[in-house]
């Protein structure tokens, strides 16, 4: 392989791992800073939230998606456009509640956990909790203006670990 061709591949490879590695270093640092997993989880959620409120503008500027008319459309945009754009994966949407206000996203291949092994003493750590915060922050910024301030409750986004791998959140929106 010529030097020129291999240069491009090296950059691409490093670039694709950069976020995963940086995230890993962050979680490691947080585990040192906080005594228990619950606090780390909260911190990841909070940081994710702060990222989400800015990320949504980046997303809307780059994706050309229009207003979502209902929650199902929102779910589609999250899974098929946003996740694809930012993480290169398309989670599947399942588990719709009868009222249509709650769903689950299943990440088959979660890029955040590449190369990651959790030691035994961190069984309560929700490693990918940043993602929940990001979703919560992004969605909160784009809630429908028709809803009054009391109508839109804080979105609940949580990760349920069913198979210890890449299970992901549910978005909850309650209308008043």
């Amino acid at each position, binding site marked *: 392989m010529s030097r020129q061709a291999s240069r491009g591949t*090296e950059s691409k490879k490093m670039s694709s*791992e950069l*976020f995963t590695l940086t995230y890993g270093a962050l979680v490691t640092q947080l585990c040192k800073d906080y005594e228990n997993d619950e606090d780390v989880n909260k911190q990841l959620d909070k940081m994710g939230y702060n990222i989400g409120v800015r990320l949504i503008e980046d997303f809307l500027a780059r994706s050309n998606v229009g207003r979502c008319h209902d929650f199902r459309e929102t779910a589609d945009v999250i899974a098929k456009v946003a996740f694809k754009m930012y993480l290169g994966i398309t989670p599947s949407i399942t588990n719709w509640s009868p009222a249509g206000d709650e769903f689950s996203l299943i990440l088959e291949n979660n890029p955040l956990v590449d190369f990651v092994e959790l030691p035994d003493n961190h069984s309560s750590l929700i490693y990918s909790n940043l993602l929940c915060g990001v979703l919560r922050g992004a969605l909160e910024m784009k809630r429908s203006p028709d809803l009054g301030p009391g109508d839109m409750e804080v979105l609940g986004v949580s990760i349920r670990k069913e198979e210890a791998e890449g299970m992901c959140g549910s978005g909850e929106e309650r209308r008043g």
Partner: protein
Amino acid sequence: MADAALFEFLHTEMVAELWAHDPDPSPGVSAGPRGGEMGGRKGQKTSLSVLKGMGFRVGQALGERLPRETLAFREELDILKFLCKDLWVAVFQKQMDSLRTNHQGTYVLQDNSFPLLVRMASGLQYLEEAPKFLAFTCGLLRGTLSTLGIKSLVTASVAALPACKFQVVIQKA
């Protein structure tokens, strides 16, 4: 593959998070008598070194994943060129703008529009805040060099945002 914007967003949040946890946060690195400044400076130093440490680990890991052929550089200068081109493109989607050396182990890498500083105001405003946004990257450079077999000290300086210089001093064994 994670989008490049994610790294930038994460980095900004990491800087904010680590700064919020200073035992004694102080606004800037400027000298001058101020009550409790020793504590403030110590707190800042801790946060900067934490960011550098994280960057170092990431740089090491990035270096470790490179194929063997890449690591067979002929000269030290080749390695620095690799940092300025391949590594910089991978992390910041652009090449370093200039590389200078005294051919005695000191290199100055200049980026006229460093992406992690670009979002802040340009010029002299927020100059005091700039070191926080450079610490991780200094560590990253040092970490990658370390994996490539080079021990170094990396510091950064900003005269006017968003341009900055990274100084790499090779440590002889």
